């Protein structure tokens, strides 16, 4: 960081939008937004999962492919994978101090969460389209 005396920018102006994650409070807000989404969705999601307990493939595929259930699960998948991406990034930033290893870990975290999200979403869309 440059010497504050060599700049005319105010201290607030210099740090605004530049937290430890270089993205200000965006992650903080999205962490809570997705948390609230999942808090609201948890009862219907548990209901769906409990409905599926003990069913064979044909029964499970039929239920998972129904419109309201697919939408509930899609919303939950988007909220949860986003939430866990932010959460794991906080953990990485707390414990990984080597800069290059940190960047690699954050990248791997993004890849993992995107892969889990897209694989789950694709599976649900496939079940909904019945192919």
């Amino acid at each position, binding site marked *: 960081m440059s*010497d504050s005396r060599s700049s005319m920018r105010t201290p607030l102006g210099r740090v605004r939008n530049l937290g430890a994650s270089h993205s200000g409070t965006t992650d903080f807000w999205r962490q*809570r937004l997705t*948390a*609230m989404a*999942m*808090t609201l969705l*948890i009862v219907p999601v*548990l209901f769906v999962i*409990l*409905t599926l*307990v*003990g*069913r*064979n*493939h*044909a029964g*499970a*595929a039929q239920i*998972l492919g129904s419109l309201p259930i697919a939408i509930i*699960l899609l919303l939950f998948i988007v909220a*949860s*994978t986003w939430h*866990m991406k932010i*959460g*794991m990034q906080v*953990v990485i930033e707390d414990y990984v101090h080597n800069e290059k290893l940190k960047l690699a870990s954050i990248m791997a975290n993004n890849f993992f969460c995107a892969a*889990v999200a897209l*694989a*789950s979403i*694709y*599976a*649900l869309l*496939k*079940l909904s389209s019945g192919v």
Partner: protein
Amino acid sequence: MTARIERPLSPHIQTYRWTLTMALSIVHRATGIALYVGTLLLAWWLIAAASGPSAYANLQAFTGSFIGKLIVFGYTWALMHHLLSGIRHFVWDLGYGFKANEREALTWAALIGGIVLTVLIWIIAYAIGGGR
């Protein structure tokens, strides 16, 4: 060049006397990490359902096994605990529950509530599906 400012460092974790909220803060993070890994099971479940009967039978063979049940039970607890512990954080975010007795009560509620909900869910699951 400015000299690096020597800011006070937080003492090592072993320096502090263990408190309930501190232990549960660590549990909140640990359950979060467990749930992160656990989404692989959730993704496997959906992919298996989309793939066909044999893939789904493989998944059910795993979730029906002792180890599988243990993992899913642990996942259920981690989810319920993280949920209630997270709601506790919402209360704190809004500026309530910071008095010593309040934060202890919130933390106990999350701890006990998480266990109660987990057992309740599994009782319902067994009642519905015979524990398969």
